[in-house]
């Protein structure tokens, strides 16, 4: 984490900025935070502080930029993930809010405030309102790839860059070949999906068309059945995307 | 890949492809090479064939010594970076031996599985050998007689 790269004594501006923010002295807080961020551009906490100040000022767009900058420094920064979830909640985009909170929960599994927020967000979403599927969104946790293992669209989700997405796509193509062969040679017919579960994440890989497949990655807090149902819908979206592109 | 007879290309190709083999060698139990993949020098092919056939014969003897009814079936050497699978199998041409060298992207289990499929496929597609009775034609004895006399210094 880049926070650790800045010497401890130089971080007093963070405390000062935070105190000013809590007192409602937003302009002063912002100038302190921006000066700190200019001095330590890779310090995630500095961008996070800016995000909080701008959000308090009602500048959602500015706050969003600051928190995305935070994630560039530290892909699993819980403060930034929670902040982005808050912004999404405020604009009533509960799907996005849930996604950021799931990522935050994966990063800080013991933070009960995140799990509480997650429950609240889930309860807010109407039961019949499906999660929005955007194949092109690199942070949506949807990765569309071709049979050769080349990324067509999307990414692995919050906190994972394009290089990792490319590497995952390359691995996924090999896994799909093995899945197809295993199902065929064991007399199980065509393969439908491969579900990979770890402590923090769940990933499913499934064929989208004859030439393409989809990788859907979610935090382990996402229920398996829901992940698979979402993945099935995402396949339809991917097929439409492939038809249009 | 090189094969002595064209019908072997398909099963050997499948074995190599499916088991991700780096090197593969198919030989008769006396060490005559009938197909290979991945070797670049003929000297290596011959050496590997001779050693492979020898190792299998030796382990067959070992199996007999320790009281195993059948031979061990396969000899596996698993190294850090690559493994070797060596096993005999029956064909219409007699007993043959396959040697497969595989890397970290394969496993003994995978090689074993596709070796079994390969052996079954060879049994299925290998044409029956030309009867030995047809190797020589009538009248060979005159040539043989002359040859032996010349060899033994009898003119």
């Amino acid at each position, binding site marked *: 984490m880049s926070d650790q790269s800045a010497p401890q004594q130089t971080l007093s501006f963070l405390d000062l900025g935070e105190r000013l923010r809590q007192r409602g002295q937003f302009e002063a807080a912002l100038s302190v935070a921006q000066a700190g961020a200019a001095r330590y551009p890779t310090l995630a906490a500095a961008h996070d502080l800016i995000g909080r100040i701008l959000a308090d000022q009602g500048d959602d767009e500015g706050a969003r930029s600051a928190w995305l900058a935070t994630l560039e420094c530290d892909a699993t920064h819980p403060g930034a993930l929670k902040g982005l979830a808050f912004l999404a909640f405020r604009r009533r985009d509960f799907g996005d809010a849930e996604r950021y909170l799931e990522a935050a929960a994966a990063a800080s599994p013991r933070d009960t405030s995140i799990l509480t927020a997650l429950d609240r967000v889930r309860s807010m979403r109407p039961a019949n309102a499906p999660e929005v599927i955007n194949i092109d969104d690199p942070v949506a946790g949807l990765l569309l790839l071709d049979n050769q293992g080349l990324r067509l669209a999307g990414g692995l989700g919050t906190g994972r860059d394009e290089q990792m997405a490319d590497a995952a796509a390359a691995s996924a193509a090999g896994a799909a070949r093995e899945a197809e062969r295993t199902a065929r040679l064991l007399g199980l017919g065509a393969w439908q999906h491969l579900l990979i579960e770890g402590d923090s994440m769940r990933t499913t890989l499934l064929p989208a068309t004859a030439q393409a497949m989809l990788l859907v990655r979610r935090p382990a807090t996402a229920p398996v059945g829901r992940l698979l149902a979402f993945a099935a819908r995402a396949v339809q979206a991917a097929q439409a995307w492939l038809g249009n592109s | 890949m090189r094969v*002595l007879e064209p019908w072997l290309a398909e099963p050997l190709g499948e074995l190599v492809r499916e088991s991700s083999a780096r090197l593969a060698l198919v030989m*008769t139990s*006396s060490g*005559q090479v009938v197909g290979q993949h991945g070797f670049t020098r003929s000297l290596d092919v011959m050496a590997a064939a001779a050693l492979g056939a020898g190792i299998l*014969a*030796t382990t067959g*003897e070992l199996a007999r010594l320790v009281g195993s009814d059948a031979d061990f079936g396969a000899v596996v050497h698993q190294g850090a970076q690559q493994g070797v699978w060596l096993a005999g199998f029956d064909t219409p041409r*007699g*007993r043959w031996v396959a040697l497969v060298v595989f890397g970290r992207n394969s496993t003994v289990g995978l090689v074993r599985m596709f070796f079994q499929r390969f052996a079954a496929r060879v049994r299925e597609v290998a044409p029956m050998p*030309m009867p*030995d*009775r*047809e*190797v*020589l*034609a*009538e*009248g*060979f*004895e005159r*040539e*043989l*007689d002359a*040859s*032996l006399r*010349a*060899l*033994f*210094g*009898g003119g």
Partner: protein
Amino acid sequence: MARIDRDRRTIALTLLVVGARGAGKTTVLRTLRQRIPTDRLRAGSSGESDPDPMLDWLTMDLGRIQGWQVQVDLYAVGPVSNRDSTRRLLFNEADGLWLLADSQANRFDDNAATFRAAREQLVDREGRQRDLPTVYTWSKQDLPGELILAPDVLRDGFAPGGAPAFEADLVRGTGVLESLHALVTLTMRRLAPAREQPS
């Protein structure tokens, strides 16, 4: 089975010289080494300094027969049991058998035991007895008559089926080349149509 490479048109025969200790196997191979031109011969031994080595071999190049390059691998194998694995391999490969009997009357039982052991090893993978072309050589026929058995007696004892048999004086080399000539011919007949074989 003869090793036949149809693409390279080569035939390699494996012939075994089998005899009890002291029956003259080494002398047979020595005689052949002396009589065959060195450019047609390769030879080796498991124990060069051993007067009766456990395994002696030579390879003869017979030249071309009907366009086939023919090679004969001749192995002298004794009755020693601690070479069983090597013996077994050789017996699996063998195309022809050259049984060498010491003509001395007091060696009759040794000869019989050696020949019996050889036949026991001549089984295929299914355990069936293999029928190999066989010739017999009665060695030491040059010894005084009261010490040896006559060829007729030896034939009755060992080769009642009428396999070719030759009397040999191994020291002078008589009978050796004739025996080998007969065995190579018999073995190669199995590679030709059956009608080739005279009755």
